[in-house]
């Protein structure tokens, strides 16, 4: 039964992703994406990775997507943008990406379908994850902090003038 739930989540994740990437309205797309992420979070949970599931919800669907929402709202693309998007997505523009993706899909199926094995069934608890993270991966955490610093500084520098200008008007 739970297995069925797992597969349902997988299907939802896929469907929502496809929907997200083909919408013309950015906000709608984002909502689909969040749905997809939540579905993946369910999969994480069911596979015995509750900590990852939680983070997926909190940070991915929560924080990162919200960042998107902010930006979309700030840009205020509106109906004109939607019409343009629809025009861009018209007929012919699908062909090349579609065929490329189809080829890649084929190969992915060939490769990944070849993998044998099952998930272990044993859950990896948040404690274990924490132990690992601050054990062997301690330095990774430190470096990740530097990475975030870099992202922060970059985002600050790039976003700063925009915000200031907006404030002026």
């Amino acid at each position, binding site marked *: 039964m739970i297995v069925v739930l797992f597969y349902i989540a997988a299907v939802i994740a896929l469907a929502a992703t496809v929907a997200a990437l083909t919408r013309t309205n950015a906000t709608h797309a984002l909502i689909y994406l969040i749905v997809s992420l939540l579905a993946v979070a369910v999969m994480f949970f069911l596979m015995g990775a509750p900590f990852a599931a939680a983070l997926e919800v909190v940070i991915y669907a929560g924080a990162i997507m919200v960042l998107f929402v902010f930006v979309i709202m700030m840009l205020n693309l509106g109906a004109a943008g939607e019409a343009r998007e629809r025009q861009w997505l018209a007929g012919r523009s699908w062909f*090349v*990406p579609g065929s*490329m*993706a189809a*080829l*890649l899909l084929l*190969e992915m199926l*060939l*490769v990944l379908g070849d993998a044998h094995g099952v998930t272990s069934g044993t859950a990896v608890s948040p404690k274990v994850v924490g132990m690992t993270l601050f054990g062997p991966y301690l330095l990774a955490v430190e470096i990740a902090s530097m990475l975030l610093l870099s992202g922060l500084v970059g985002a600050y520098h790039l976003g700063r003038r925009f915000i200031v200008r907006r404030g002026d008007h």
Partner: protein
Amino acid sequence: MNSIVLIPLLPLLSAAVLILSTGKMPRTVASLMGAGSIGLSALCVALLASSFLADGEIRELTLWTWMSIGDFSPRIAFYIDGLTIVMMSVITGIGFLIHLYSIEFMWDDESLCRYFAYMNLFVAAMLLLVMADNLLLLYLGWEGVGLCSYLLVGFWYRDPDNGAAARKAFIVTRIGDTAMALGLFLLLTELGTLDIQPLMVAANTQWQTGDTLPVLATALLLGGAVGKSAQLPLHTWLPDAMAGPTPVSALIHAATMVTAGVYLIARTYGLFLLAPATLEAVAWIGLATLLIAAFAALAQNDIKRILAYSTISQIGYMFLALGVGAFASGIFHLVTHAFFKALLFLAAGAVIHCLHHEHNIFRMGGLRSRLPVVFASFVIGSAALAALPFTSGFYSKDAILLAAWSLQDIGPWLWAGGLLGALLTGIYSFRLVFIVFFGEARTEPDRQPGWKMAGPLILLCVLSIVGGWIALPLAGVFPAAESHPVNHSVEWISIGVPLLGLLLAYLMFLGGQISVDKLLSAPMARRLVDFWFSGWRFDQLYDLLWVKPYKAIAHWWRNEPVDALYNGIVAASQWGHRRLLILQNGELRWYATIMVLGLVLLLAVMLRNAP
């Protein structure tokens, strides 16, 4: 210091000084140096000759070893025997007379200094040619005289035609020279030396008469001789070479240089004796040349061209002599020819000099009384040329015809041909005399030759007459000629034929009993004369065969066809550049697409036949 060294050295030094003076030397000094050095040289030759005649000893002199690589060590060395003495005497003796003559002839020319420089250089080179003890040094002189001939033919360089004539002379002879060089390589490779005397000894021991190698070697040497001596098929340069000053024609293109081929064959007769086939070819070439040139001479109207063709023809006799094995007769004719042809050229030069550089004989006439000295010279010269009895030319030509007659099998044919030539010689030489010196005057001379011109003329007149009695010291040089049983009827015919020629010339050109116009009225005859006039159309033929294709190829290739290959590579690279640049269209989605394509391909390759 050995006076032998002085003989070529004096003209050489004089030439060097004259060249280095770059034309700033006063005329008097230049001409004094020019003629004087040859005079001194001639004096030395005379001393040498007298001592040689006294003791008959062959003189050898080595100056230094030119180079020495392994067994190959040619020297700068002289070998002087009777033949050399004869040649040296002719070169310096006649050379001196012509130099003397030139002083007056060239006095007004702005480049007198250059003229004498070239002339002296020529004499030096010619002396080296005849004195060389090895073929390499001979080749040096051989090419040296070629260069001087080029320089002097093109002496009046402002006229491009003269330049063309000079180039033609050099290049055509160079073709022969190249064959000769190949002959030298062959001799060196096979016999291991180029020293003439050891070479002949070695050839005699290593080769049998009639072997392929001696035939090949002598044929190649013959190529050189044919080129230099303007024989068929390389004779076309000589008539054009008349573009140079007339004394040059006298010295180089009549008396000395053009006979170098004869000298070469005579010098290396030992090799030729081993190659009867070549020797026969020499005879036939000589015969063919003498006839063709004689016919051509009949049709010319330029005084110098007539003489030029006659020169070719006379050298044909010399070749004939060599071909039938009468080396000494060949040399004898060479000497007498040098006398009378130099005389004729100088006399012609005097005519030209006195008639404002007029060359066309039909614009001359009646000069008999106006230029008496020249007239006398011309008559004597022509008589000798036509081999009228008791002139020098008679003795030498007679000897040749006799030798030809007495040869087995082909002898009579050669003799008959030679006789025909003699007839023609009589006609064209006296045609010249009658047209130029008799009849009415068409151009008035504006001056008379001075003593510097007349003196040499008179001296040469004497030589042309008495030259036949000179005994050349050739006894030890060539193998003793078999004494031929003298056939008197043959001798009489030899005497009669030139006279017949004289008579015909008189009837046609002076007496008028035979109308030339009537003869020429037949279209065939007209065409024939035109054909002869153009020198049997050899020039046109060669133009078509060699010159035009060469120029066409050069023109076709002038922009470097090989570059097409490299330009192709360049074009391919540029093509590749442009093709690849199409990908760089600046669109992000496109870049992403290509990346995905890359990934797809990468995975495809990895998964193909994946285990």
